[in-house]
């Protein structure tokens, strides 16, 4: 099982979620994050002070997927979240040592 972490543009969330569902993904977890990268933010001005916004709003998606699905999941995210513009984000894949479903105590792939 792998743990996929994707940082994407916020307005792409619903598309990505639906595309993953289409793939058979049953669950995922989402959080609001701020991203710093090549994409440069705009400037916020407050009276005398100007701040260049170095952090841009992004959405982080985390999902554990069974090994067979990982490749397609990553590819699906990459394709769906893509706008071709700088700042589209990244996908990282990590190994999972164990997984448990809290409701039932099921472990391993059955936990998903």
């Amino acid at each position, binding site marked *: 099982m792998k743990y996929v972490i994707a940082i994407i543009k916020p*307005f792409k969330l*619903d598309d990505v979620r639906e595309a993953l569902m289409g793939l058979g993904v049953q669950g995922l977890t989402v959080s609001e994050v701020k991203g710093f990268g090549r994409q440069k933010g*705009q*400037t*916020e*001005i*407050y009276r005398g002070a100007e701040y260049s*916004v170095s952090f841009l709003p992004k959405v982080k998606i985390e999902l554990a997927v069974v090994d067979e699905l990982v490749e397609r999941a990553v590819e699906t995210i990459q394709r769906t979240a893509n706008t071709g513009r700088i700042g589209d984000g990244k996908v990282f894949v990590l190994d999972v040592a164990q997984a448990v479903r809290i409701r039932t105590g099921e472990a391993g792939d059955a936990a998903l």
Partner: protein
Amino acid sequence: MKHFGSAGGRAWGTALAAIGTLVASAGVALAQTAPAAAPAAPPAPKFDSGDTAWMLASTALVLLMTVPGLALYYGGMVRKMNVLATVMQSFAITCLVTVLWTVVGYSIAFTDGSGSTQPFIGDFSRVMLSGMGLNSVNSLASTIPESVYMTYQMTFAIITPALICGSIVDRMKFSALMWFIGLWSILVYSPIAHVVWDGNGYLAKLGVLDFAGGTVVHINSGVAGLVAALYLGKRKGYGTQPFHPHNLVFSLIGASLLWVGWFGFNAGSAVGANANAGMAMAVTQIATAMAGLAWMFTEWMVKGKPSVLGIISGAVAGLVGITPASGFVDPEGALVIGIACGVLCYFSATTLKNLLGYDDSLDAFGVHAVGGAIGALLTGVFARAAIGSGGKGTAGGLEGNWGQVLLQLEGIVGVAVFCAIGTLIILKVVDVVIGLRVDEEVERDGLDLALHGETVP
């Protein structure tokens, strides 16, 4: 029925011509500035301090409706990324219209005018408020200083265009909005205010009843909103993506301040602290509450839950509906108007809008135009002779004068048509010159940061 015949048609044609004259002569008038000499001060009039006190307070109350009332009511309903852009619209319009009203708007709306344009616009004698001194009086408000009446009416001139914004949030350029509203205020609002409220106004003379602005404020802004929404088109993602209201607590504050401020709007329209004002306040309270309940229960039955957005929308619908009626009906009429507005505006802002498919984003049309029209019509039904004008008022349908309902209908249609045409022309001009809509990317990522360089947490 005759008013719908050719005479009526001609009259409204003249109206458009009058506006033409207005545009042409405004330049001239502004160039000459105003006939500077204040008329030789007449003997100081004896103002009624109680009436003046109430009108000063009413002015504050109506200003409260727009800032922060309407700003919050609308601001709480849009998505987080557009909150500041939305509240900015109300605030900036307050500033802009105040200045335009000072420069020329009041003069167009509330001076006598002359000749064939008199039923449609005033004259330029109060450009830059010249001649408005401590002793001057507007004939529509004989017991208070003109400065108070001018400022009071200014607050109506402010909120009307601010209401339009409900239809165009999330997608209109701020610069375009400023131009659109500026022109609209002078070319649409001021003439319509003259037509309905000035003693020489076309609809006023016909006998159309509009106590506090059902046509001038609500049908006017609602129709303009619809036209603008249709012209601009839908927001990206409308109907497919969830447009989560940022914070309905803000909207509830806004609706509450609208309610409280509306006492100044309706009871203030009695232009004095008298029994007419008292009755107007009472029926305003009653119709608003009834409409809030009506919307809430309708939604509860239809959707299964009573929502905060629902009850506040209903209350606003009731406020809108009672506006034209508030000086003419009694508490029972108010209850009926409340129920009608609560139920019908619910369906116009939900079922009807979804059916027809336009994106009247925050329902300026669905609540204000529809509610205003219902109220204006029912004013014709429920007006009681013993309530209007200190007891010497016009009777409505229930007291046998069904012709009043037709008159009211003419008022509604006349204002709606004139407003729609005027709004469309202005939009077209601004669109051609600077463009109305923000870039797709700006719309997608939010107007707050792109247009104003600020964000909310």
